[in-house]
C-alpha cells in the first residue's frame, strides 16, 4: 500500500503577505548621523518660528 500523499497546505489568500520590495530609487546611507547630516545640508539653516516672526514684525 502506498502512503497517501499529503495535500499541499492551502493558504488563504488573505493570510499571504504581499511582497513589496523596497523602493528602487533609494541609495544606502550608512548611519543615522550620516542621514541627519545629509538632511541638515539639504535644509540649510533653520531658526525658531518665534525669532522669524519677531524679525519680520509679524506681531
Amino acid at each position, binding site marked *: 500500500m502506498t502512503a497517501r500523499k499529503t495535500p499541499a497546505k492551502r493558504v488563504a489568500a488573505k493570510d*499571504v503577505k*504581499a511582497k513589496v520590495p523596497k523602493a528602487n530609487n*533609494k*541609495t544606502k*546611507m550608512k548611519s543615522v*548621523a550620516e542621514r541627519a547630516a545629509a538632511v541638515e545640508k539639504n535644509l540649510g539653516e*533653520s531658526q*525658531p518660528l518665534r525669532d522669524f*516672526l519677531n524679525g*519680520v514684525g509679524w506681531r
Partner: protein
Amino acid sequence: MLSAGERQLLVDQALALIEHLYVHLTLKRAMHAVDPLQRLRLLKHRSASMSEGAFQSELISIFTGLRDLHTIYILPEPYRTRVAYLPFRIEEYFEGDERQYVVTEVKPGTEDASFKRGVLVTYWNGTKIDRAVELNADREAGSNVDARHARGLSAMTIRPLAMSLPPDEEWVMVTYRAGSQTAERQFYWQVFEQGLPGGGNDPLAATGDLALVLGLDAKAELERQVRKLLYAPEAVEIAQRVKQQIDPVLGGGIDIAVPVNFAVVSKMPDVFAFRRVTTPSGQFGYVRIHTFYVSDDTAFVEEFVRIVGLLPQDGLILDVRGNGGGNILAGERLLQVLTPQSIDPERFYFINSPLALRICEANQSFADWRESIAQAVETGAEFSHGFSLRPVENYNDIGQKYQGPVVLVIDARCYSTTDIFSAGFQDHGIGKILGTSGATGAGGANVWGHDLLLSMLPSTDSPFKPLPQKASFRVAVRRCTRVGKRSGTLVEDLGVVPDAIHRMTRRDTLNGNIDLINQAGEMLATMPVQAVAAKVQTSVPMTVDVTTKNVTRLDVFLNTRPYRSFDVVDGTTSIDLTALKEGSNIVELRGFRNDQLVAGTRVRL
C-alpha cells in the same frame, strides 16, 4: 514689512482678479456662503491701522475662505520662501471607525528611544488629536470635507509661509503612546528657507507654456518637496545623481561611482517611482506618480511609457495619492497610453467678463473662446463656450502602450491636474478607481498667476500692476467639465468618486501600503487581460505578425483608412501590407471582444 500703499495695491489687485476673472465666484458664494469681495473692500478700508500679521492673516483668510486651492495669495518675501515645520510627519489609519494618528516619519537625528516611527499621537497641546486636526482643517482651503481633513492633517507639521497662516503656537506639546507607555515631548516650530536640492520645479514660479496650462495645488507640491528634504535624503541624492548622469553639465558635479540603473529608477525620479509587487492575487506593476508638475509633457508621457514597458503587462496599479497636479497637458495626454479609446479632453470655460474678453482678444491662443464671450452681452450667459486646451489630436498622437487592466489609486489630496486625470480615467472607462478617501480633492480649473496676467496685458491702462516684494496671486480662470457619461459635470467641489474604498491600515502607513496594494491586486485579478502585439517582418511584400490574446476580432487600419478585418483566436495572424505608400506609414491594430474595443497598438513604418 509692507507699506500702507503696498497693502492697498495688493487688495486692489485681489479685487480685480476675484471680481472680473475668477471663474468659480458664483459657485463658491453658493456652496460656501462667502463674500470675498466685501471682505476685500473692508480690508482695504481698515488696512492702514492693522499690524503686519493681522493684515496678512486677513488676506490669507479671505482666499482660504474660497475653499479653492488654486486661488491663492502668495505672500511677499521673506515669507514667500520660508517653510515652518515640526520634525515629524503624522498620517492616519483606521481601527474600526476610529481614526488613529501615527508618526510615520521622523527627521533623522530627532528620534529618541521613545519617540520614533510608529508611535500614536493622542493629544496636541492638551487637545485630543482628532479635534486638533479638525480645527486645523477649518483653516485650510480644501473644497470638500475629505480634502479639508487631509489638508488639516498635513498642515499639523508643515506650513509653507508663502500661503499659510503661521502656527499660533511657538511650540507643540505632543502626547503619544509607544506600546503601553504614554509620554510627552515638546517640539519647537522651526523655519527654513526652501530651496530645490531635491530636484523639481518651484511651484510658485511656473513660466513659459507651463504657466498657461497650470492645474496645481502649489501648497501640496511645496509640502511634498519639503517632506522629501526632511525625511528622504536618499531620494534627494538619487535625484542629484540622475540629473548628473543625464546632464553632467547641469547636474552639479556629483561624482557617479556607480551609474544609476534606469531599469529600476525613473529618469524623472522626482515624478515617478515604480516596482513590481507580488500580491496574493498575482504579480503586477506599481507606478507612483508623485506630481504632474513638469514643464515638458511629452517627456513625461515618454518616460511613463518606458516605465510601464519594464513592468508586468497583466495588471498595473497606478497610485496618484498626494499628487497635487501640475501640467494639465501631462495628465490629459497620459490617458491615451492606457486605453485603445480616443481621448475626448475636458472642456475649459472662462467667465464672461470684459476683462476675460480683453485677454482673449490680446492673445491668439484663446481665439476659440472670444466669440462666445463677446456674445455674452446679448446672451447673458455666465460662462464662455468650452474648448479643450489643445486640439483633440494632441491627446491621441501616441495611442495605447499599456494594454493590461489598470487600477487607479486616489485620495483626497489629489488635486487639479490629478482630478482631471482621474476624471478622464473614469469617463473613458480605462479601469477601476480605488480610493483611500471618498473623493479626490476636487480642483477643476486652469489656474493663472498674476505675473502671467501682467505679461498678457502689459500696457499702462492694464488693470494689473506689478506687486511688491515678489508677492503674487493665483486665480482659477478656466473651469473644466467632464466628458462621456458625465458630460458637463463640474470637477470643482465635486471631485472624482472611486469605485471602491480602502481604509488605510496601520500596516499600510508603516509597511509600504501593503494592504492597499493587496486590495488593488484583488481588483486587478477580476479584470480581463488582453493583448494585441505587432512585429514587422521586412519581407516582400512587408508583413506584420500580430499576436492576440483574449480578443475575437482584429481590425487593421493603414494610414487611418480601414484595411482588413479578421476573426481571431489567441495566437499569431500574419497580415500582408501591399498598399503601402511612399515614405512613412502607420498601421493601427484594434482588438475587439464582444464587439467592444479592448486593445490597440500602432506601428510606424
